[in-house]
């Protein structure tokens, strides 16, 4: 469509715009520019477009230190898992030393004692296979194993806390590889290393959990007086004010409410809600899109009271709201927003509810129309 010579094409122009041409190329390019108005137009079009790309706001970078800590923990967890797997794979070759190291921690000691004899044959078979794989490999593994185990054996007592401020969201990778996405104004407490039998964390606020599967070691989240126990699944817990809700996205979870001493088995798509004032857990089908909107920087409201809507917006934008009258708080609304522009959200709310919203000094004043 353009009378490009073989070498001046869009990518060539992009390089020219970046000042990334060799002297000969540069000379050629200048000549090409001077050839016609059309060439110059094409160049300025592409240049303007590239400027527009460059100016499109980049989001702020994630905290490097936090990310680095997450990475280290993941790598450590990964190595420990590998060390454990190696233990199971070649028990005979090193069982005595392994026993000594594991005993103080009581890792499956009973299991090892009772199963030991019945597994002898299996061990022998394993050994043959391992031996055929190569003795040198085995020796090497054995010599390095002690070092790798030391980090695993260190007792876990230190607790880590991750907190989000207003308007902030964070992803945390736990030592077992599970992921937790913290919504704004939330807090997660977890041990630096998980215990031998359980994976316990405590949540305040809201988070989405993607739990690494491990049937032997249940993962439990305590939030308010609701305890949620899983082995490997994805779910969202929201604990704001008096209300706690658990929504299951994948797999199944068990939820205990200590006050009622009841267990709720929740499956994919189930929502358990618990209100401290009513004290009656309720299980129903959830609108997943509604509960997970926050993960994609969206707000979703479903017959939500205006006061709760404004609570969400306050948390996200770090602002305050002021209602002219209490009756306004109880109007309910349904809607789905991207959370990028406060103005946009406010104008939609004011249009749909036919109320007046004024934004001044980081405060939203809500008045009747």
């Amino acid at each position: 469509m353009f009378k490009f010579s073989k070498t001046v094409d869009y990518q060539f122009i992009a390089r020219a715009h970046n000042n990334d041409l060799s002297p000969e190329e540069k000379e050629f390019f200048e000549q090409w520019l001077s050839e016609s108005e059309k060439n110059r137009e094409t160049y300025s079009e592409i240049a303007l477009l590239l400027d527009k790309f460059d100016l499109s706001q980049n989001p702020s970078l994630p905290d490097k230190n936090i990310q680095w800590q997450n990475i280290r923990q993941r790598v450590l967890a990964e190595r420990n898992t590998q060390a454990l797997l190696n233990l199971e794979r070649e028990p005979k070759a090193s069982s005595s030393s392994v026993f000594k190291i594991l005993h103080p921690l009581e890792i499956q000691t009973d299991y090892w004692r009772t199963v030991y004899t019945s597994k002898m044959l299996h061990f022998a078979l394993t050994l043959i296979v391992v031996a055929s794989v190569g003795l040198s490999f085995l020796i090497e593994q054995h010599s390095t194993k002690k070092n790798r185990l030391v980090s695993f054996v260190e007792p876990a007592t230190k607790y880590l806390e991750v907190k989000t401020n207003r308007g902030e969201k964070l992803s945390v990778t736990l030592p077992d590889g599970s992921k937790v996405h913290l919504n704004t104004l939330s807090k997660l407490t977890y041990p630096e290393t998980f215990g031998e039998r359980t994976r316990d964390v405590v949540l305040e606020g809201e988070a989405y959990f993607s739990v690494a599967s491990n049937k032997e070691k249940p993962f439990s989240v305590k939030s308010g007086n609701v305890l949620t126990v899983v082995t490997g699944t994805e779910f969202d817990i929201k604990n704001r004010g008096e209300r706690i809700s658990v929504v299951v996205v994948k797999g199944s979870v068990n939820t205990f409410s200590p006050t009622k001493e009841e267990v709720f088995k929740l499956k994919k798509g189930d929502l358990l809600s618990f209100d401290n004032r009513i004290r009656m857990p309720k299980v129903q089908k959830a609108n997943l899109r509604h509960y997970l909107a926050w993960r994609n920087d969206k707000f979703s409201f479903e017959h939500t009271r205006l006061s709760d809507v404004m609570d969400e917006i306050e948390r996200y934008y770090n602002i305050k709201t002021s209602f002219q009258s209490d009756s306004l708080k109880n109007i309910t609304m349904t809607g789905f927003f991207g959370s990028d522009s406060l103005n946009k959200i406010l104008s939609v709310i004011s249009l749909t509810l036919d109320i007046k919203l004024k934004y001044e000094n980081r405060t939203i004043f809500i008045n009747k129309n």
Partner: protein
Amino acid sequence: MLERETQKEVESNLNEELIELYSRIKSKDESALQEFFFSIQPQLFYYLFRYTNSREIAEDLTQESFVKFWLAIDNLDPRQSFKAYLFKIARNLAINQVQRSMPLVSFDEENILLQLSKSIDSEIDNSFFMNDFQQAINTLPERCKSTFLLSRFSGFSYSEISEVMGVSLQTVKNQMNKALAVLRKRLIKYID
């Protein structure tokens, strides 16, 4: 005559400083790994952010890529570019992620909301542009998309891109050309 591939550029991907850093990384020097991560995190994150169009997913994948990189160090050749290797991992993770995930909100819905609201014009203009820009990026064929993003948002040279993608310099140029042609066609209305 101008197709002379700049051999000089290819060599400059690995300078002495980097070679030293790589050999420290290779010997599992944790401070070297940290140094490498800190220096490369912005490029990695911006590539993944534009690729997935989600801050959160990009954050996750930034970490995930580096974990995978770290665990693979034993198998790396210190003469090859670790940077390229890391971005190869990142690209694979991004491809998988995009194939798996379904956007929570469709474009039209967002559009209607935008039209409904009567806020500041320039803001709307800009969010329309961003929307269309992201849409346009997403319609690019994968190789084209990665090439474009690495070039514009991670500041990779064409020869670095050719290492990540495992293609020739000429292919990178072709892909870049194609990407710009598509983007120009789709976004020309924003240029006055």
